[in-house]
């Protein structure tokens, strides 16, 4: 019934949704079985499987869909572009600035927040209004799988969630088994160009570089996303440079490095592009991005033998 109501617009939907949850609250108040601990170590319990979910970051949207709860998502934020059907869901602003009124109007019974990405004050307001908020921020491969399972638990889609999580775990484990022990490739992963930014080993992308057998040249940086300059990169002299770029096929960031022919990565022609959407979000698509990244580093190893 409510998947149908999703398609209508206006307040009635929200009011009905709220009324519905109130009714179900009354009837099944004893059922406290759906609990999960979020990434702020709070236990969130629902009386019922979440039926109207609001996801307040593009990553949360993707994870919720991966957990099999896509049909229950009623609100997303801008840049929630994957899976494509998420683009048809009502937007409630950006993750940094949420239109609380629009969000409340959609009467969600579960809000998936982003620990450091959403403004704390707005989230406090939501909680004060009695909305259950489940904060997530997966920072490791295992955390991605675990988050999918927890979301599935709250949304009542455990079978799908378990399957997605184990597929992801197995895929990443296979990549690790295959590549992590190979000859280390000194690697620079470029997150952004102006200002120039890399990642540390703590960062999820840094972890992917490691499991592919890469040696992140800025891995021991104190900051998760260290800000760098060309000089630092020249001094570190990585054997491979991997960059995303703006858009999915834009190699501009890499051509920048060609002005330094003595840089090992340039000399060996190891400037590689990995689509940012596949690697910069902590979602199951990371497996695809990791696969590409591992293959690129493997190419770099092959070139060593050739020369």
């Amino acid at each position, binding site marked *: 019934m409510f998947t149908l109501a999703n398609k209508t617009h206006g307040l009635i939907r929200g009011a009905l949704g709220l009324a519905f949850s109130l009714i179900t609250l009354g009837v099944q108040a004893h059922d406290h079985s759906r609990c999960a601990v979020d990434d702020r170590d709070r236990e969130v319990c629902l009386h019922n499987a979440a039926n109207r979910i609001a996801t307040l970051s593009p990553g949360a949207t993707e994870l919720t869909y991966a957990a099999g709860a896509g049909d229950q998502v009623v609100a997303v934020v801008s840049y929630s572009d994957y899976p494509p059907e998420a683009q048809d869901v009502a937007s409630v*602003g950006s993750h940094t600035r949420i239109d609380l009124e629009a969000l409340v109007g959609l009467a969600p019974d579960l809000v998936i927040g982003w620990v450091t990405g959403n403004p704390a*004050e707005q989230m406090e307001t939501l909680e004060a209004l009695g909305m259950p908020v489940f904060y997530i921020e997966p920072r490791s491969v295992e955390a991605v799988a675990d988050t999918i399972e927890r979301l599935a638990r709250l949304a009542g889609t455990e079978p799908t969630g378990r399957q997605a999580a184990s597929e992801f775990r197995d895929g990443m484990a296979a990549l690790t088994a295959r590549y992590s022990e190979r000859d280390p490739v000194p690697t620079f992963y470029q997150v952004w160009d102006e200002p120039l930014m890399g990642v540390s080993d703590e960062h999820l992308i840094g972890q992917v570089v490691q499991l592919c057998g890469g040696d992140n040249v800025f891995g021991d940086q104190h900051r*998760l996303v260290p800000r760098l300059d060309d000089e630092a990169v020249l001094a570190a002299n990585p054997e491979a440079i991997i960059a995303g770029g703006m858009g999915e096929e834009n190699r501009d960031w890499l051509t920048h490095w060609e002005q330094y022919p003595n840089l090992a990565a340039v000399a060996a022609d190891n400037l590689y592009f990995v689509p940012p959407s596949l690697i910069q979000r902590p979602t199951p698509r990371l497996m695809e991005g990791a696969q590409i990244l591992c293959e690129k580093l493997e190419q770099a190893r092959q070139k060593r033998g050739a020369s």
Partner: protein
Amino acid sequence: MVARLWQPLGLLALIAVAAMLFSLAVGSAQLSAAQLWAVVQGQGDALARTMVIELRLPRALSAFAVGGLLAVAGALMQVLLRNPLADPYVLGLSGGASIGALAAMLAGVGGVLISGSAFLGALFSTFLVFGLAHGSGGWTPSRLLLTGVVVAAGWGAVITLMLALSPAERLPGMLYWLMGDLSYARTPWPPLLLLIATCVLLIPLGRSLNVLARGPQQAAALGVDVRPLEWGIYIAASLLTAAAVTTAGSIGFVGLVVPHMLRLLLGNDQRLILPACALAGGTLLVLADTLARTMIAPEQLPVGVITALLGVPTFLFLLYRSR
């Protein structure tokens, strides 16, 4: 005599109430007149009540309080320096408060500590500007203004440094905050009570401020204890600025434009101008914030952008016309 004060104030109060009602009626969710009326009567469905009473009302009240505080702080600084260019933004008070608040945010503390830190920042900025401008001789308004402008530029650099050094995921929030944004506002009562208290305390001082506006010597000759009054104004302006900045980030132009416009319309009696600033500044920010949250909803604009976009052309027009 008293009517001369109450007539314009009554009119401004009516406009303020109208702006508040408008702001309660308009939002990204469409509520019908019937629904609104039901809410006013204490009925209506739970959702409409939540929207109006728990989301729109506190935000509108916060906007009103912040606008009023900034306009009154601006008017006070202008009397103090006898210069219509002075406002907390130009004089580095906002910058000092912003640094205090940003430092608290970076340190990961919240709530009251952010306000306290912002007030210390504003006060430190105050002492710095007054102390430096005083130098070896007495301070003149132009020297004070110049010192304030330079200190404000210094704060700008420190803010940029803090932004450059802060973790990337904090940047969007901090930037929004620096642009001035009311979606951070939680409870409207601290700034609102401060605004009311300030107005009640300033009304009896209004005549002294009128005399002070004619210069410190003239004021002293007419029986005003100039130095304590000047320090009192500066500290009060710091407090008002800090309260406004912690509620809604740094919002420019309200403190400059509102007192200036009201002076052109109502003359220079501070007993009238100060409460009028509280009402008109509040009204302006309520309207600007309503625009900010509805113009491209569900995306939310920072309200500081709207006040600047409204304030700059208005101010330039007034300046051009008053030549």
